């Protein structure tokens, strides 16, 4: 589609500089109703339609568990081991390929991974989950027992506190949107209320914190304020997007603490100990703390900040011919709902409001879009999200200001993608 075929833009329909188009124009043209676009003249003619082979003989047999089309074989999680071979096999990450997905739900097989000691192969019939510590009666549950409770269902994201770490490098790294920002996934989780189980165990008045621990070889453990469970929204998930949680996501059960650091959503959950104070585990002291320039470190920074990223166009999704494109991306906040996403095509000089749903979900991904008329000129695309608390996504410079060099946790800075005049796209710092 080229720009000459579209109705002219009135000045008020230029939403912001460098070709950003307001949603009003979109409504007026009624895309994709071609007639309203006046496209009947000057269109390129398609060839005669042939009948392909797959329409002339029966297809494949039924499948027990459906797989993506073989033509989608490149839609996979890019893997990043964090240690040389033989040193920390199983400690690493794989990224959700954000730029290859649409909508807001992350398919289970593409949901990012972060393991500290590999994926345990847990037999659900042997798995046990204990609640103990400062309680009247320590309890232990089997998976089967937990499945007898009423289910709570919630759609929320889980984001690794180290997400976007590549944008903490001094030089902008040339990686895809998913390879930079893909340590996040969004799913509908179903499971059991943690408050109810704690109530059954009878939390003593001194019980103020929970230590959640996994059954993996790292026995990943984190201290969690009890408020997140009692009168809060923490729960124990057994299902992800309708099916039982995958092994790499914590099968048979994981803790979900919506909006908080990924590593607190302890996978392979085997134990919650009620304690009076945090226990200061390795992953809330040595790691997942934020070193400042003054030598002090921020600790217990649970909530993931307001953030957004343009997934299309983005590196690997280069532009073709000049003309109309849809800028599209994802926005989220650990503090609640997204209330606004703005987009810039001129490196942050001018901004236009992107389209978001009227009702955005709390602590879950929101998809934003905005039409863009690309005339073949260089551009710098950026998105900036605001959440219901009024928090606005910072620039990279502002985000970095308090932190020491190489500090990489809770990176929620604005992403800038440079578009060259041949449509190539690269990661830039502005």
């Amino acid at each position: 589609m080229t720009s000459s075929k579209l109705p002219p833009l009135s000045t008020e329909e230029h939403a912001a500089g460098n070709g950003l188009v307001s949603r009003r124009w979109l409504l007026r043209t009624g895309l994709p109703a071609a007639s309203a676009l006046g496209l009947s003249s000057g269109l390129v003619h398609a060839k005669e339609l042939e009948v392909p082979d797959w329409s002339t003989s029966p297809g494949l047999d039924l499948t027990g568990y459906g797989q993506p089309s073989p033509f989608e074989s490149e839609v996979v999680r890019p893997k990043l081991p964090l240690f040389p071979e033989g040193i920390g096999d199983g400690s690493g990450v794989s990224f959700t390929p954000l730029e290859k997905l649409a909508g807001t739900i992350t398919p289970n097989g593409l949901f990012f991974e972060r393991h500290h000691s590999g994926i345990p192969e847990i037999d659900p019939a042997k798995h046990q989950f204990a609640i103990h510590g400062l309680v009247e009666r320590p309890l232990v549950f089997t998976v089967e027992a937990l499945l007898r409770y009423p289910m709570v269902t919630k759609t929320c994201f889980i984001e690794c506190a180290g997400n976007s770490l590549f944008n903490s490098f001094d030089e902008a790294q040339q990686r895809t949107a998913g390879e930079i920002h893909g340590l996040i996934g969004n799913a509908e989780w179903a499971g059991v209320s943690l408050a109810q189980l704690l109530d059954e165990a009878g939390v003593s008045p001194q019980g103020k914190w929970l230590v959640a621990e996994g059954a993996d070889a790292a026995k990943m453990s984190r201290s969690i304020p009890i408020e997140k469970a009692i009168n809060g929204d923490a729960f124990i998930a057994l299902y992800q997007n309708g099916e039982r949680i995958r092994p790499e996501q914590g099968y048979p059960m994981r803790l979900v603490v919506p909006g908080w650091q990924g590593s607190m959503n302890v996978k392979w959950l085997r134990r919650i100990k009620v304690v009076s104070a945090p226990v200061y585990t390795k992953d809330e002291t040595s790691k997942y703390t934020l070193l400042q320039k003054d030598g002090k470190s921020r600790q217990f920074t649970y909530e993931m900040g307001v953030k957004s990223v343009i997934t299309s166009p983005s590196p690997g999704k280069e532009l073709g011919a000049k003309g109309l494109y849809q800028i599209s991306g994802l926005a989220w906040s650990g503090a609640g709902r997204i209330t606004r996403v703005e987009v810039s095509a001129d490196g942050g000089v001018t901004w236009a409001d992107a389209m978001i749903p009227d009702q955005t979900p709390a602590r879950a991904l929101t998809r934003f879009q905005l039409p863009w008329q690309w005339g073949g000129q260089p551009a710098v695309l950026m998105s900036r999200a605001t959440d219901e608390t009024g928090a606005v996504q910072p620039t990279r410079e502002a985000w970095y200001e308090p932190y020491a060099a190489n500090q990489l946790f809770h990176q929620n800075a604005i992403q800038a993608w440079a578009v060259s005049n041949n449509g190539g796209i690269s990661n830039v710092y502005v």
Partner: protein
Amino acid sequence: MSMSKLGSLLVVAAAAVSLSMPALAQSQGKVVSESDLAKWDISIGPDGVGLPAGSGTSAKGATVWSEQCSACHGENGKGGPAGDLVGGVGSLKSPEHIKTVGSFWPYSTTVFDYVRRAMPYNAPGSLSDDEVYAIVAYLLNRNKIIADDAVMNAESLPKVKMPNADGFISYWPLTKQ
């Protein structure tokens, strides 16, 4: 009887049932004793509660270190492929800061907790409590935090003051931000 009357009777009956049953009667869990949970109860906080019996010194720890840890964390806790655990004390304000057990970790108890739960990487849980105390003594000694002959046990370990103990700012509760 009208539907609404039947409905309110049922509500009253249900309330009576839930009031008369203790919470435990509804639980699908089984009651377990803390002693039956002992093998799992491995969390050690700064107060040291839960530290096991046993003890170790850095001399003993040096042997365990070279057999069990040095391949991944370096000969003297430095320069290994899995990251430094020794050095960098006092470096946190500098752009070339080095985060290690000695320079960064606020509590000595975390070293015991973590090594016992997760190390050595390929065989966590394989060290005896004496060996873990010895390894912790070794790491604290090489970081110049405790003397060569200091004995680490359930009583002495929580008393060790780490160089960066006051280096953290808590962002919880959220209102502090």
